[in-house]
C-alpha cells in the first residue's frame, strides 16, 4: 500500500495507476460477461498497435479529433470553465468548414484549406461564445448552457443536411463531398493518416508552451485556482481570462470538427461525431489537463476505439464496450485522485516539501 500511495503521488504515476485500475476492472467485466479474455486482449492489441495499418490508419486517425478536442477541454478546465459543450462546438465547426469548403470548390489547396480550418475555428468560438456571454453577463452556469447548446447544434446539423446543404439529388441526409483540393493531405504513404494529426501534435506543443511560459498562461492557471489565488497574484481580471479561455476552447473544439470533415469524412452528416466531445473530457482528465498528457491520453483512447472495433470483429465483444472502458478510466482517475488527497492529508509534513 505504501508503494501504491507513493507511486500515485506523482502525476504520471497517478494516471498510470488509474489506467491500471481500469484495465483490472475491464478484464473482470469481460470475464464476467463470458468472453475469452486472452482472445479479446489479442484482438484489442491487433486492432490498435499490432500492425502499421492499425496504428496509423486506426489508432492515430481516431486519436486526432480526441487530441484536438481534448486540448479544448483541457484549456477550459484549466481556467475553471466547465465547458462540456465541446460536442456542440465541434459540430458547428464541422458545419462551417463544409459550408466554406463547398463554396471554395476549385480554389487552390494552399488557400482553401487554411480558410476552411479558420471557418471551423470561428464557428466553434462563436458557439462557445453564446455560453460565454450568458455566463459573463447573466451568471448562467456554463454546465447547463453548453449542454443545451450541444442539442441545438445537433438539431442545426440535422436541419442543414436535410435542408440547405443537402446533396442535389435529395436522396441522402448528407452534403456533397469536398473537392480533392479542399481535403487535408495524407502524411504517411499508404495510410489513412492525414495532416490533422500533425496539427494536433503542434497544437499540443503550442498549448504546453503557452500555459507554461507566457503571461497569458499564468493568468489562465491563476484564474483556475480560484478567486483567492487570483487576488493574491494581483491584477488578474478573472472574468476576462475566463471569457478568453472559453472562446479559445470553443475555437479549438471547432478545429477538431474542421479537421475531421476535411481529413476523414469529406462531407457533413448527422452522426459525424460519435461523442468526441464527451470522450474528450475523459482524455483531458486522464491527462491531468496537461497538453503533452492529452497527446498521450488521446493516442491511448484512439487505440482503445480502434482496438474496440477489432474486438468486435475477432472476439465478438460488442463495440459499445469501449464506453465501459472509458467510463472506468474516468472513475479510476477520480478514485486515485481521492486516494492521493487522503495520503497527502495523512502524510507528515516535511519542511520544504512541495507536495500537494
Amino acid at each position, binding site marked *: 500500500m505504501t508503494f501504491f500511495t507513493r507511486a500515485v503521488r506523482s502525476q504520471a504515476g497517478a494516471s498510470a495507476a488509474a489506467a491500471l485500475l481500469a484495465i483490472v476492472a475491464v478484464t473482470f467485466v469481460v470475464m464476467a460477461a463470458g468472453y475469452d479474455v486472452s482472445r479479446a486482449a489479442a484482438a484489442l492489441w491487433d486492432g490498435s498497435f499490432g500492425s502499421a495499418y492499425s496504428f496509423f490508419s486506426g489508432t492515430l486517425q481516431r486519436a486526432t479529433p480526441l487530441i484536438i478536442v481534448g486540448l479544448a477541454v483541457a484549456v477550459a478546465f484549466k481556467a475553471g470553465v466547465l465547458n462540456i459543450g465541446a460536442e456542440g462546438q465541434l459540430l458547428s465547426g464541422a458545419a462551417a468548414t463544409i459550408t466554406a469548403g463547398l463554396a471554395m470548390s476549385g480554389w487552390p489547396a494552399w488557400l482553401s484549406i487554411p480558410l476552411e480550418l479558420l471557418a471551423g475555428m470561428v464557428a466553434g468560438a462563436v458557439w462557445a461564445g453564446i455560453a460565454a456571454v450568458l455566463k459573463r453577463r447573466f451568471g448562467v452556469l456554463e454546465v447547463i448552457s453548453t*449542454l443545451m*447548446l450541444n442539442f441545438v447544434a445537433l438539431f442545426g446539423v440535422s*436541419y442543414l443536411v436535410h435542408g440547405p446543404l443537402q446533396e442535389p439529388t435529395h436522396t441522402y441526409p448528407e452534403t456533397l463531398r469536398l473537392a480533392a483540393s479542399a481535403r487535408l493531405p495524407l502524411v504517411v504513404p499508404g495510410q489513412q493518416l492525414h495532416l490533422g494529426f500533425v496539427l494536433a501534435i503542434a497544437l499540443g506543443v503550442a498549448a504546453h508552451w503557452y500555459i507554461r511560459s507566457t503571461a497569458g498562461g499564468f493568468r489562465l492557471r491563476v484564474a483556475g485556482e480560484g478567486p483567492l489565488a487570483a487576488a493574491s497574484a494581483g491584477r488578474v481580471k478573472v472574468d476576462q481570462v475566463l471569457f478568453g479561455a472559453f472562446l479559445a476552447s470553443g475555437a479549438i473544439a471547432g478545429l477538431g470538427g474542421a479537421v475531421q470533415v476535411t481529413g476523414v469524412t469529406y462531407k457533413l452528416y448527422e452522426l459525424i461525431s460519435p461523442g468526441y466531445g464527451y470522450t474528450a473530457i475523459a482524455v483531458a482528465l486522464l491527462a491531468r489537463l496537461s497538453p503533452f498528457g492529452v497527446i498521450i491520453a488521446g493516442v491511448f483512447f484512439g487505440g482503445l476505439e480502434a482496438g474496440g472495433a477489432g474486438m468486435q470483429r475477432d472476439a465478438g465483444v460488442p463495440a459499445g464496450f469501449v464506453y*465501459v472502458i472509458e467510463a472506468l478510466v474516468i472513475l479510476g482517475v477520480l478514485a486515485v485522485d481521492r486516494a492521493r488527497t487522503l495520503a497527502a492529508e495523512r502524510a507528515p509534513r516535511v519542511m520544504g516539501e512541495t507536495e500537494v
Partner: protein
Amino acid sequence: MSGGATAAFLESGMRFATPLAYAALGELVVERAGVINIGLEGAIIGGAFGALVFAGAGSVALGFVGAAAAGTLVATLFAFFVVTLRTDQIITGTALSMLGLGLTGTLYRTIYGSSGASLHTPTISPVAVPVLSAIPIVGPALFDQPVVTYALYAIVPLLACWFYRSSAGLALRAVGEHPEAALGAGISPARVQWAAILFGGAMGGIAGGTLVLAQVGTFAEGMSAGRGFIAIAIVVLGRWSPLGVAVAAVVFGAASALQTLAQATGWSMPYQLPLAFPYLLTLVLLATARARTAAPSALGKRLP
C-alpha cells in the same frame, strides 16, 4: 388544426412527457439537495434494460420494480463517488452516462445475442377514465393514458407538499442552499444527498421502464436518447419547483409531439425547429434573474 388533430397532438405530447416527468422530478430532488446528476442518462438506460430483463421474467409490475432497482444501482455508484469520495459531480456524471450506455449495450448483445432481434416485453395499455376521457380536446390527453401517467397526478402534489410542508423537505432544501448551516442545525448533508440521489436514480429508472413497458415494448441500445440531459433542462425550465417541472415536462413533450405532427402532415417548417425550441427557451429563461435566483445556491459544489 381540427379538434381531432389537436386532441391527438395533446395525447401524444402527454405520452412523450411521461418518462421525461419521472426523470425530471427525480433530478429535481437531487438538485434541491445541491447535486447535479449529469449521469441521469445512465440511470434511465439502466432502468430500460432492467425493465426488459425483469418484465421478460415476469410481469409488467415486476418490470417496473426491475427498472427502479437498476436506476438505483447506477445512482448508488454516483452517490458513492460524489458524496462519499467528494469527486467532481460533472465529471463523475459524464462517466456514469457513458458507463450506463456502454454496459447496457454490451449486456444486451451478450445476453440476447448480437443479431439485435426484436424482443417483446408485455406492455401496459392506456386505461380510459369514464366520463373524463370524453371531454373534448383535452380528455384523451389527460384521462386516456397508462397508469404510470396517472401516478404522476399524485406524485407532483405529494412532492410539492413534502418539499414545502415537511421537515425532511426543509432539510433537503437546506442542504442544497447552505450545507454548512444545515450541518450546524444537526442535519447530515452527506446522508441527505445520498438519499436524494438514490431517489433520483429510482425515478430515472422508472422513466426508462416507462419507455420500454408503456411505449416501445422492447429495448434498443441507446434508447434513452438524451432524455437524461433533457430532464436537466426541464428542471431549469421548471424553476426548481415540482409543479413548474411538471409543466416544463409537458412543454418538452409537446415539442416532440409537434415534430411528429410536422413530419406527418408535411409542414414546410423544418421539423428540427420544434425540437430545438425547448432548449432555446431554457437558455433564454436562464438569462433572466428569476431563474437564477431559483437555483439552489450550493448546486454543483462539493460538500466541505
